[in-house]
């Protein structure tokens, strides 16, 4: 394969198209790299850091880093996996995540990753922040569950490119801010898209709940990552 890029993940020979990111290339080779902020079709922002790998010895996020010829990638090593687990735990203690009562339970990527990484009790102390729930005409914004991944910021914009969702504040007070006027004009379809694209249960469409019972949802059927690993 002359035009292909050759690289390795944990010693396994892999091939990639030029321009592919490490994440994309790994997926094409049947190797699962967990992501939370990344979503196919959206510009990667490298905010959650869960997809971090060691590429040629250096820490890099696989959603933003193009793969290069001869790259040696450490992905499922104990060190990399331990650091990813720490990030998931940070997200759990930084917000207020009560899975049993959450509409997104079973469809939640954060919850699914916590299962995959077998998190029982986080190594960090819970911060129990005081956060609010905001109501908009078509949906609720549950700040307790928001992980500031910016998927909604990138995916849901007006036709002329105005941001309906935007970041507000900084540091530990970073929040998603909704433009009241623009949000009021969102169609039902857009609201559904926002809810579906949210990896957790932060954006909730009003007047629908638990249509699919817990136990029969996406990650109740098959654990996260299995769809990639089946393609080995």
């Amino acid at each position, binding site marked *: 394969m002359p035009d292909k890029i050759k690289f390795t993940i944990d010693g396994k020979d892999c091939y990639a198209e030029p321009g592919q990111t490490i994440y994309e290339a790994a997926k094409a080779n049947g190797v699962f790299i967990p992501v939370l902020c990344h979503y196919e079709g959206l510009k990667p922002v490298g905010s959650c*850091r869960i997809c971090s790998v060691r590429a040629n010895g250096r820490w890099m996020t696989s959603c933003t880093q193009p793969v290069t010829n001869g790259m040696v990638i450490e992905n499922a090593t104990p060190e990399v996996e331990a*650091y990813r687990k720490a*990030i998931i735990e*940070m997200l759990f203690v930084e917000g207020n995540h009560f899975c049993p009562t959450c509409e997104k339970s079973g469809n939640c990527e954060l919850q699914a990753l916590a299962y995959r990484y077998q998190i029982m009790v986080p190594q960090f102390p819970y911060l129990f922040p005081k956060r609010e729930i905001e109501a908009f005409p078509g949906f609720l914004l549950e700040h307790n569950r928001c992980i500031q991944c910016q998927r909604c910021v990138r995916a849901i914009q007006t036709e002329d490119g105005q*941001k309906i969702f935007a970041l*507000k504040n*900084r540091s*530990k007070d970073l929040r998603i801010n909704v433009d009241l006027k623009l949000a009021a004009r969102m169609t039902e379809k857009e609201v559904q898209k926002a809810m579906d694209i949210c990896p957790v249960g932060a954006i909730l469409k009003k007047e629908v709940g638990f249509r699919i019972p817990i136990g029969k949802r996406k990650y109740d059927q098959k654990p996260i990552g299995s769809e990639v690993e089946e393609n080995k």
Partner: protein
Amino acid sequence: MDPIRKILQKYKRDRTRLIDILKDIQESEGSITQQAIELVAKHLKISRAEIEGVITFYHFLSDRPLGKYAVYLNNSITSEMAGRQKVAEALEKETGCKFGQTSEDNLVSLFETSCVGMNDQEPAALINGVVFTSLNEEKVRKIVAGMKRGLAAQEMVEEYGDGANGHELVRAMVKNNIRKAGAVIFDEFTPGQAIAQALNKTPEGVIEEIKKANLLGRGGAGFPTGLKWELCRQEKSDQHYVVCNADEGEPGTFKDRVILTERPQMVFEGMAIAGYAVGAHLGILYLRHEYTYLKKYFEYLLQKMREEGILGKNILGRGFDFDIEIKSGAGAYVCGEESALIESAEGKRGEPRDRPPFPVQKGYLDKPTTVNNVETLAASARIMLRGSSWFRTLGTSVSAGTKVLSISGDCQRPGIYEVEFGITVRELLEMAGAQDTLAVQVGGPSGNCISESGFGRKICYSDLATGGSFIIFNRRRDLFAVVRNFLDFFIEESCGWCVPCRAGNVLLKKKFEKIVAGLGTAQDLAELEAWGKIIKSMSRCGLGQTSPNPVLTTLTNFRELYESRINKKADFIPEFDLGQAVMDACQLTGRKFKEESENAR
């Protein structure tokens, strides 16, 4: 016409001027109201949510009404050491207003702020943008009395500092405190000669000369300047840009303040030289908000340079066009990171970008951009004048030239020292008149806290690299208070974009406090170190990657301090104090919890 519309017209529909627009509105109206946000949103065709995002990112922008006098008191460690607490108390007492609030009569708002670049004359504060230095209780009383009489902040500046601080367009009480002038930056400089020398060469020739001089980036990271220019030049584009990073925000750094005050034209010429080298026609001076008091002076000098033909169209009649525009931040340490600075210069939230692409490939407005430190640009002007061979006679083989250091903390002569690379920490301590030194923070909070065993180490890129910050602590200081101040600084200044920096630093501080409070075990100490390493490895930009350094470097160099605080017998001590948690309930019901509380321990 109402003032807001007038401001909007002035900046046309230029999205990159959003921060300027918001600053002007705040200055004119006292705050940025919902009504103003609405007008700006319509004018620039962006959402209100996006504008609110920009306002809430920057420390000096406010959507809440501020008092007639907005006081921002520096809370950096050197300010603490110089008596910030007493000044803060006096401010609260005299104004009857608490920090974070506005007084009932709307006269004064009090805020804390991160380092304002005045560490050699602390405690310092900005009042309506005017710098007040060496504050004490008596000065506070006088200032507040002046406010009550309705004096403008500038009118309360009684004495001007030395050099250009006294220029009629500056009129600042700031002192230069140049203790040692070196051959590169603070030697005599005649405007116009350096750019003339550069124009005698080809652009490639200029790059070659800078490469031969082995000039490394003076912001602290030490990237080779010649290589940066070359990479930028090689990018094919209709536009290239030069950006001067004048956003020194690392606590303890104030050297760019003095370089910009005393050698501004040398910096501007350095920008023009860089522009000639990379093929740019516009340079942006990104000036930190805290140094806005120098802006009018710069504008005057730039105009003068244009009139003298050393800036603007057809410089020195040699067919090279280059001009300089000043842009300002609005208070955010992270904007010192070059890609965050570019975002901010484009009028956005100052959040770092992912790399690749690097700024030399896609920088300002996605065009190839070289971002250089103030001192780097000034040094390149000197290299044009005196040549690379001369430059390399200064310093060490790896680190050529001089470094301007800003020394503060426990010493008799805080101020600016331009020294050759290779000087030891001990020699610097002696020059500054430091005695009984416990520790030196080299490179600011993101740098290294070294103990006496490291005083023989050298200031250079292969040993102790620094952007210029050098803070001295004597043996009477509590190093834990220093680390606490630095950790709070990083928590405050994290942009929050990535998880390890946003959440990790809060958790790291919690663990640190547990240990300092005497509730730590060997396990806690191990976790403190491990968590620091996670944040370092997983964070997105330089801020997060260095934010655990206050903990990690003191753990390395002052481990005995931490060891002395931990309980060596216990395997585990809960952080949660049941007695404390039910204290309120106990008091309400009139019951005592003493006994159980002891059991819980």
